[in-house]
């Protein structure tokens, strides 16, 4: 047994300690600061200077003293990867919050840790390799059923050489810590494989053959996203918006309805109450694709605003690593982070304590590259077995003062594939989801034809122009033709861009439905109409809007759906201009 490397605290400010160490120090190495009451406070080296390590402490530093002992682990900050992570609620360091609650009650007592995986339960392991097979990191040696998925048990990703399987267990029940295979490297050294292994969270998992360009849409069932500003499997997107604009509600809707296999929710530095809604409701909700509880496809990483700031910084990496791991199973994983600004602020707080030279708004100089590296971990990949897997990342941004010119929004916009900018005006007018239809953009392709989308967007642009003009010259100063363009854009907004998140049917619109309904909308926008005057035009579009919204609330494939469609078409026909006159 080699001795534990230790150090002594030399200084304390906030959650930062300076530690004098004998011997080698590794960047991102984990250590434990030991308090007088023998609490062990997990910490991470984030800067090394001579024999001094600067460490961020993942707990309150209250009561620590100069001279207190720090024990080092020799390991980087890591998570344990293995079966049983789905359905669980972890803090930013992968401590299961339910287990902590059971043992310690209402509060997150300092220095308390619990096993991230359940070491006692048994999994039915089916081997996929046999003695003599050649394997390497990222090759599955077997699988266990986890909920609705085949959870593959891999040769740990850091084992990059070629190995020979010396032995493998038979199909049967095993615990995660049981040795299920032994492999041997070319020099005859044996390595025991268990059903789990550790992986340092700040290092991307790259045990795949190649990274591909994302192309298939990831369906969210939110019309304005899927039709106008789509996201792609393996792509990235961001949702900036001022407080109250609807970022969190939009992510919650997405986490419920998106056509992803696994959803990882990273509640990063925002309200605890919002996570509680997920915790309490998802187990009761069923996933329409599988009929099983939504929780069975969900992992929650919860490091809310009053939990330690350093662990908030780590939580985003923890979530990403778990996402990358499930991607290795050939699954489509969606990671939703709310809010990346809190993560960036955590970096800022830590860097401020290190007295680093700050950049804009005191963010550290490296924060832009950190944001880029984070979104880079998304991607569509071809695995060693030829199958595809994807990790899609969507992050909310909480810009100071709601101003998108600030550093975090700007750094994010440089690297993401789609921008869903939420607008305060739309939220105040209760036009939800409040994604701004003129300012948002996406580089990914929709399942609806581009020409039709361009036509509809053009109506929105022109309608906005007319609206701006009307504010100056009033309705009386606006021509009937212009007024109709304005009414068309308002109609499109009301019946298609807006969507009622609290209505069972309207909340989730399938691609089939979107294609079908968008064609009807497109047809209405295309037509020319005859109106006596503006009042008649307004009455027509208001009536049409009402019927259309009612239509949105009716299930597709029902008689009522057909009937409502007929009545809409009849109404439209009534006012349509026909070349030959009536």
């Amino acid at each position, binding site marked *: 047994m080699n001795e534990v490397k230790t150090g002594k605290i*030399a*200084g*304390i*400010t906030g959650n930062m300690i*300076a530690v004098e160490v004998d011997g080698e120090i590794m960047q991102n190495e984990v250590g434990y600061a030991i308090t*007088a009451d023998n609490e062990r406070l997990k910490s991470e080296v984030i800067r090394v200077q001579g024999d001094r390590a600067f460490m961020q402490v993942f707990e309150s*530093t*209250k*009561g*620590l*003293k*100069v*001279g207190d002992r720090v024990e080092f682990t020799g390991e980087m900050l890591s998570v344990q990867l293995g079966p049983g992570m789905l359905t669980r*609620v972890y803090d930013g360091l992968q401590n299961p*919050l*339910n287990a*902590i*609650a059971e043992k310690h*009650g*209402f*509060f*997150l007592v*300092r220095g308390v840790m619990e096993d991230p995986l359940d070491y006692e339960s048994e999994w039915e392991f089916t081997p996929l390799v046999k003695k003599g097979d050649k394997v390497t990191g990222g090759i599955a040696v077997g699988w266990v059923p986890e909920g609705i998925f085949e959870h593959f048990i891999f040769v740990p990703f850091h084992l990059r050489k070629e190995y020979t399987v010396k032995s493998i267990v038979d199909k049967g029940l095993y615990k995660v810590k049981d040795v299920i295979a032994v492999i041997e490297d070319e020099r005859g050294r044996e390595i025991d494989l268990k059903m789990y292994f550790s992986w340092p969270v700040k290092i991307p998992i790259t045990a795949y053959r190649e990274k591909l360009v994302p192309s298939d849409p990831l369906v969210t069932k939110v019309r304005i996203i899927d039709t106008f500003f789509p996201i792609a499997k393996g792509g990235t997107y961001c949702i900036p918006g*001022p*407080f*109250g604009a609807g970022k969190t509600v939009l992510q919650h809707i997405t986490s419920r309805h998106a056509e992803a296999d696994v959803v990882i929710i990273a509640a990063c*530095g*925002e*309200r*605890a*109450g919002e*996570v*509680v*809604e997920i*915790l*309490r*409701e998802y187990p009761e909700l069923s996933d329409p694709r599988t009929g099983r509880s939504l929780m069975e496809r969900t992992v929650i990483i*919860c490091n*809310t*605003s*009053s939990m330690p*700031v350093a662990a908030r910084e780590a939580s985003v990496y923890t979530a990403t690593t778990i996402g990358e791991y499930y991607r290795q199973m050939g699954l489509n994983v969606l990671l939703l982070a709310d809010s990346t600004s809190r993560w960036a*602020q955590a970096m*800022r*707080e830590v860097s*401020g304590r290190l*007295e680093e030279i*700050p950049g804009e*708004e*005191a*963010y550290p100089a490296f924060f832009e590259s950190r944001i880029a590296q984070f979104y880079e971990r998304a991607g569509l990949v071809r695995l060693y077995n030829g199958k595809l897997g994807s990790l899609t990342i969507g992050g909310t941004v*909480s810009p*100071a*003062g*709601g*101003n998108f010119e600030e550093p975090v929004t700007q750094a994010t916009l440089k690297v993401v594939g789609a921008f869903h900018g939420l607008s305060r005006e739309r939220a*105040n*007018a209760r036009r939800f989801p409040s994604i701004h239809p003129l300012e948002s953009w996406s580089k990914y392709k929709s399942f609806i034809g581009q020409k039709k989308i361009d036509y509809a967007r053009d109506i929105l642009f022109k309608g906005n122009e007319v609206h701006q003009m009307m504010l100056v010259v*009033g309705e*009386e100063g606006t021509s009937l033709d212009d007024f109709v363009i304005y009414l068309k854009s308002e109609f499109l907004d009301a019946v298609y861009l807006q969507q009622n998140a609290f209505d069972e049917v309207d909340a989730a619109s399938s691609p089939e439905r979107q294609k079908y309904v968008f064609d009807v909308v497109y047809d209405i926008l295309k037509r020319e109409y005859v109106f006596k005057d503006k009042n008649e035009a307004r009455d027509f579009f208001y009536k049409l809007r009402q019927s259309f919204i009612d239509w949105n609330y009716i299930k597709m494939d029902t008689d009522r759906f057909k009937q409502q469609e007929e009545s809409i078409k009849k109404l439209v026909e009534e006012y349509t201009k026909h070349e030959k006159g009536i």
Partner: protein
Amino acid sequence: MKRVYNKILSITGNVISVKATDVAYEELAEITTQRGKSLAQVIKIDGDIVYLQVFAGSQGISTSDEVRFLGHPMLVTFSDNMLGRIFDGSGMPRDKGPMLTELLIPVAGPPVNPAKRIIPRRMIRTNIPMIDVFNSLVVSQKLPIFSVSGEPYNQLLARIALQAEVDMIILGGIGLKYDEYMYFKNTLEEGGALSRSIFFIHTASDPIVEGLMVPDLCLAVAEKFALKGKDVLVLLTDMTNFADALKEIAITMEHVPSNRGYPGDLYSQLAARYEKAVDFEGAGSVTILAVTTMPGDDVTHPIPDNTGYITEGQFYLRNGRIEPFGSLSRLKQNVNAATREDHRAIMDGMIQLYAQYLETEEKRAMGFRMTDWDRKLLKYGKMFESKMMALSVNIPLEEALDLGWKILAECFRPEDTGLRTELIKKFWPDKGAEQR
């Protein structure tokens, strides 16, 4: 071990440093100066140099004054004897009552485990229609009142405190004007609520730093009472003073400011306090209402901005009224389905019509022609403002809903309102129908 030091190395702003060993982070010390005693808290340790923020401020501190380390962090007494008592920003009696030394508890304890939280579903009735009808307050909610000086925010707080159905009130004054402090005291006394209240008062004339502990003291005591089953309402006024005190310390410590001089951890500091709001399953609750005056009436100022990102909505108090736009209770949907079947419809319907009224009012001001519909809206808007929005209105939720129908019926035909037909059948007043 040596706990008393007589050599102060530096005095900058309200921060002093001494050479000392075996000092714990956030430990308290007592400084004896010719002005008397003051508490100070360790905010940085660098080798054997210890930096302390002095709650009473550094005025008159001399380098040879005595610094005595107390061996514990900030503590506050906790017992039923606190009820009806008034304390200062260090937790010392401010009234003539005796010192309380029973059961000392640490302040700023660990956060609640999110897995132990429950979805809040109990409404707090205030008899203020702009709250009860349009933005219901919910047990365990944390909600700021965004306002500017001169507005009656403290009157609003006092009134909610008196009318809210809670077991206890804890008032935290931070930089509170003396007459406002007296106003709270007298109002709660007259309302018979003083005996279920505890005050922690830091006034505008007290040293700024002393206000920093007030939220922590209030919330630590509130949390303990909540664990004993009490529903506690915590009122904080004014959190802008709290944030400004944080800024002052940060500048003294030469922390790099992030935004308009405020420290980068302002969000985390505020969140650590506001997130103490909680509904404990099987016990009581902590609800927080906090005045936040907006410097320059600017909601994008770092203090209201960071606050809005943390709290569960906000009330805008402007021109003596709670504004329907911008004001938001993020928890209202948890409670307003279970009150009366017309609650949500009245809430949405009246606000949408009021929004239309504002547009019409703008058109009118610009001299555009008014249609019949415009004239209906103008009448409605005026009635809504005087009968619903005015803070003087003091009626239970059900009466307010009835009043809503009455106003609608006096101004509109049922079909103008966009309200669902079944509700109109049930609630539309007959009198209104006759008038047509």
